[in-house]
């Protein structure tokens, strides 16, 4: 069969060439890393590859520096200050922590003490100062009572330039409810300072964005406080969705974030300074504010304030956008939040609450 021979010989001389095409630059740069004791995702839009990588690693470095500097019990500037606060007498504070303490003082006053960064000892008593390991049962009542009786307040600390003195030996600073906000704020400031206009920094579910994601705003989902879900079906565990505008931070405090269980009772990390126990009327609070640190402290303060008291505290702290989910699962919204947020489930009972 000549025909078959020719056919066969044709096969042998065939080679395939593959064409190569130039790859266009991706417009989105997204990088997730473990820093600041959590997963931080930095998303940049419309930034050149080299600049994006540089910016992301600079932010990562800054974040790990801040984490060490502001950690209440590690041997950094804040840890050192906590040691000195326990001794009588004046000392010189580290300038990397003083501005944050000043800011905390203002926010604590505005929150009427519900955000109380002077209760470092209480956090430690409960074991929530550790990142990965918690206690397995609540601390003894008398120890809580003793500490609360001493009434540590950040106003007990007097700051005169860099000279610091302390009137209350029970005061230890734990800026955990504001540090993440300040860190996100500074990260965004840095990105803006190097000419990046469109970015989002998400530190473990608390975030701030500038600019837009291309031709649309940044879309985010807000986790449902009671639904458990996996990474792959995030949509099912959301209570709401929201578009984040330029220069807005969205911070959420939830009782599902850090907790331990004892005798079938859940003890979470948001401690009410009035009782010394986890605040139990709220399951989550989401706030929007231009400043990350304010949003962070407010989310905590409003959580503790609960479904009755929160509007007044929000007014004091200058927070207009609030969503609070109470323990019955009702969503309390400010009118401006109700305009912005899109609840994912029509069955959720909503309460629109004007601020006083």
């Amino acid at each position, binding site marked *: 069969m000549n025909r078959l021979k020719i056919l066969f010989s044709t096969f042998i001389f065939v080679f395939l060439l593959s064409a190569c095409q130039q790859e266009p630059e991706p*417009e989105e740069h997204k990088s997730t890393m473990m820093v600041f004791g959590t997963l931080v995702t930095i998303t940049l839009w419309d930034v050149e590859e080299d600049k994006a990588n540089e910016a992301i690693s600079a932010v990562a470095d800054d974040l790990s520096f801040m984490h060490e500097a502001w950690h209440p019990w590690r041997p950094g500037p804040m840890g050192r200050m906590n040691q000195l606060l326990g001794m009588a007498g004046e000392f010189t504070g580290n300038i990397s922590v003083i501005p944050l303490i000043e800011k905390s003082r203002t926010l604590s006053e505005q929150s009427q003490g519900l955000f109380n960064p002077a209760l470092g000892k209480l956090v430690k008593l409960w074991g929530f100062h550790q990142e990965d390991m918690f206690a397995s049962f609540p601390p003894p009542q008398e120890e809580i009572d003793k500490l609360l009786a001493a009434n540590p307040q950040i106003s007990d600390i007097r700051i005169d330039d860099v000279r610091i003195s302390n009137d209350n030996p029970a005061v230890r600073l734990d800026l955990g409810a504001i540090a993440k906000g300040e860190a996100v704020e500074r990260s965004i400031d840095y990105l803006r300072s190097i000419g990046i206009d469109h970015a989002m920094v998400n530190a473990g579910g608390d975030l701030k964005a500038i600019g837009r994601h291309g031709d649309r705003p940044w879309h985010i989902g807000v986790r449902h406080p009671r639904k458990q879900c996996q990474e792959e079906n995030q949509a099912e565990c*959301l209570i709401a969705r929201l578009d984040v505008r330029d220069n807005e931070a969205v911070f959420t405090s939830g009782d599902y974030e850090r907790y331990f269980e004892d005798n079938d009772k859940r003890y979470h990390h948001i401690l009410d300074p009035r009782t010394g126990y986890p605040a139990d009327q709220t399951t989550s609070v989401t706030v929007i504010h231009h400043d990350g640190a304010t949003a962070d402290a407010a989310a905590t303060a409003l959580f503790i304030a609960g479904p009755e008291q929160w509007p007044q505290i929000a007014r004091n702290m200058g927070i207009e956008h609030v969503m609070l989910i109470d323990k019955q699962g009702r969503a309390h919204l400010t009118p401006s939040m109700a305009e912005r947020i899109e609840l994912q489930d029509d069955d959720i009972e909503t309460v629109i609450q004007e601020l006083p």
Partner: protein
Amino acid sequence: MTLADKAVVFIAVLAAGLSFYFAWQPSAPGTLLEIYQDNTLYERHSLNEPATLNVPGKLGDSVIEIDQGRARFQSSPCTSKFCVHAGWMQQAGDVIACLPNGVHIQIHGGQGRFDAIAF
């Protein structure tokens, strides 16, 4: 035309008509693109986020473009460009594959991914 020819025409038209009925059950426009590399999930991406993604494959990088709720192969190192010529897809369930490169993309329905989840 013979009688047999006419029978073939009849069957052909009937088959074409029935195929619409059986294959076109309604399906919603998708919102989530799944990118597979060698049949393992490489990445998920919302169709609402315009993006240009490089997906490494056996032959080289495939470039997947996502825009206005649609997705396509913008370029592919394979010789046929079959996947590139397939153009845009946007319905849930749609798939485009570049077999030589071991890359395929598929649209999923339901809620898309977000830029972030607040918690």
